[in-house]
């Protein structure tokens, strides 16, 4: 789905990504792991053009990202961030920001896909628990019907139980055909969720640990 070709990102004289070449297939969950500061988030943000590379080319579905309208790309490639960023108002208002024309049935369906009760639509977003809030952000992205999901350490602030719920939800989405690129520093989580793992260290995709995991 994504092809990275000698992609370099330089920030304040430092190479955050250093000639990274990688191929992320459409099927399943691809995990990018590595210590903090390794360039994982940057790699993810390049995929929906919240950042742009200093050198190299990234292709999505065979086309260079530069040739794609970023607004169209971002609706095809959704993103869930490390810290949930709820907008003011209800859960429904949050989903309406993503898809102003969505009916409450469509919003309810998006909540269900994110393992949330559709009855939450009327709740103030800020009254949700941490796990619910992160899944609301996932639902907010799903309501735009993306074909790819970028997950940036989405469970780093969650307790064990909501973390496992999120992982199951993501697996379910992947099984339904959504491409998932998941960034985490947690190797145990990587082993649990990944169909394949890439390892980043100091901006290098060192010893590309492509592990066709063969999940149980």
């Amino acid at each position, binding site marked *: 789905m994504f092809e990275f070709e000698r992609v370099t990102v330089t920030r304040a004289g430092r190479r955050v990504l250093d000639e990274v070449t990688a191929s992320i297939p459409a099927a399943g969950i691809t995990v990018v792991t590595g210590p903090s500061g390794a360039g994982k988030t940057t790699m993810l943000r390049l995929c*929906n*053009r*919240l950042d742009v590379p200093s050198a190299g080319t990234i292709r999505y579905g065979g086309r260079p990202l530069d040739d794609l309208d*970023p*607004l169209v790309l971002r609706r095809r490639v959704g993103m869930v961030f490390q810290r949930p960023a709820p907008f003011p108002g209800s859960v429904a208002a949050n989903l309406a*920001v993503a898809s102003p024309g969505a009916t409450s049935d469509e919003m309810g369906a998006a909540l269900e896909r994110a393992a949330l009760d559709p009855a939450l639509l009327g709740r103030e977003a800020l009254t949700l628990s941490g796990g619910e809030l992160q899944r609301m952000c996932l639902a907010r992205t799903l309501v*735009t019907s993306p074909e790819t999901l970028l997950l940036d350490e989405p469970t780093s602030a969650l307790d064990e139980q909501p973390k496992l719920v999120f992982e199951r939800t993501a697996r379910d989405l992947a099984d339904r055909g959504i491409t998932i690129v998941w960034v985490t520093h947690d190797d145990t989580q990587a082993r649990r969720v990944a169909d394949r793992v890439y390892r980043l260290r100091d901006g290098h995709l060192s010893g590309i640990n492509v592990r066709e995991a063969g999940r149980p």
Partner: protein
Amino acid sequence: MNATVSWVGLGLSLLLVAVAAGISWWQRLGLHRQILVAAARALGQLLLVGAALTLIVSRGRSIWWSWAWVAAMLGYAATVARRRAPDVPRLLTLALASFTAAAVVTLGVLFGLHVFPLTGRTLVPIAGMMIGNSMTATVLAGRRLTDELHDKRDEVEARLALGQPSRQAATPYVRAALRAALTPQIETTKATGLVFLPGAMTGLILAGTAPLQAVLVQAVVMFLVLAATATTTVVIALGLIRRLFTPDHRLSQLPAPAE
């Protein structure tokens, strides 16, 4: 009665500066030196400006001198705005554009519709009021918008990641900044006459103008200031959005807000 101030009177009024400096000294605020310097500087600047204005607006002098004065004020105000809000990127040209827009709107209405006759005597002080207030509003709006986008970067990027164009993603923060910049002016306008008598009116009454006439002039000045601040802030906010976001709808790296 025409209240004129003699040089002796001016000297005696310096006692008031001494009161302020004395309070600073008594309470150990460490501000007395600053108070004295500020007062001396203000007096020097006012005397210089008074001398220049006497030359510029004197009878028979071409109105172009007054326009040149207005242009100089615009340029100076833009540099002051940039200095006061150094964390707002590339504010100088934006401030110039916004002051010019405010000048076109306000001077266009006041002189185009003959609310005031266009003379050096009316143009210079009215433009001064307009530019002075616009400068404060520019600094407020520019700082607030930059701070909002810096502090709420997560939220803004979440909106961008949902496919919103940068202009739309920035809308809630633009509104917050505009409200913050305009509210003080609206509050001042509401309280005028009840809580305080504004400077222009006080000056006119002291100079012997009939109170009703002073009130009418003051009302026009207040409306001028309202329109000027609204025009300036909206130009600043929309202009800043174009600069803080890239053409491909990414939010640029922003400096951390100044303490």
